[in-house]
């Protein structure tokens, strides 16, 4: 077999030039795939607006930003209240439907009980030096977290785009959120 000449391929084999082109193509694809790994992304969908449920998306968003993640939080339905400058300072804790509450549901359903449990939780937050919702939003915005307010629910709730914190993105919908989720390493629905 010493007479083989590498430059003379069989009829159906790719030529050396074709192989070289294919190698270049694969090297480019590899470089692109590896560079994508540098920037990790997280996408959170925030749907709840009670005081207790406002915390998890904001804590995870700010922490992921500290890890260097590119973070998007898409707020929809009651989750919009977290981004609503006025309403975010007045989020309530529901006293009913949570069996871990210190009062039975029959008592918790009485008028004014949500206000009592909310005050209780606000006092605990202050005593424990836990960050407020407003602090977490401002911190997250400073760290580059992108907060998005779902346009369909802004209209549904009759909110105005100016009601939200400065820096909040409006005019976005489910397709934007889906695209973000598809591109992300972590996707969460809260």
């Amino acid at each position, binding site marked *: 077999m010493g007479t083989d000449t590498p430059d003379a391929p069989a009829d159906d084999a790719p030529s050396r030039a074709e192989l070289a082109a294919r190698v270049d193509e694969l090297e480019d694809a590899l470089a692109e795939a590896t560079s994508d790994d*540098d920037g990790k992304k997280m996408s959170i969908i925030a749907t709840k607006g009670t005081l207790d449920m406002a915390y998890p998306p904001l*804590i995870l968003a*700010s*922490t992921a*930003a*500290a*890890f*260097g993640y590119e973070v998007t939080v898409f707020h929809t339905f009651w989750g919009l209240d977290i981004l609503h400058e006025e309403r975010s300072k007045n989020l309530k804790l529901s006293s009913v439907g949570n069996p871990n509450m210190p009062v039975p549901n029959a008592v918790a359903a009485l008028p004014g009980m949500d206000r009592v449990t909310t005050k209780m939780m606000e006092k605990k937050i202050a005593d*424990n*030096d*836990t*960050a407020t919702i407003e602090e*977490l939003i401002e*911190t997250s915005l*400073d*760290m580059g977290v992108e907060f998005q307010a779902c346009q369909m629910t802004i209209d549904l709730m009759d909110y105005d785009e100016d009601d939200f914190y400065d820096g909040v993105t409006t005019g976005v919908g489910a397709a934007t959120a889906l695209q973000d989720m598809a591109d992300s390493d972590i996707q969460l629905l809260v």
Partner: protein
Amino acid sequence: MSAEFDITETLDVKGASCPMPVVKAKSAIDELSEGEVLEVLATDPGSMSDIDGWASGTGGIELVNQEEGDDVFKHYVRKTE
């Protein structure tokens, strides 16, 4: 973990609870240059695990040391790039 190092900057987050020690440490270390060490003073017991997790999960920083005092948890994080 016991290598000698100089402290460049100290961040006092005593009293603050999750996620603030990590979030503020991130902002503080962004101000440092390569090779410099940030000292973080915290009272949050969760900071022992959280600062460790943050330092190992984040590029460009490494945990140099952690000390568990009576009241204060001390963390030393170096900027590596």
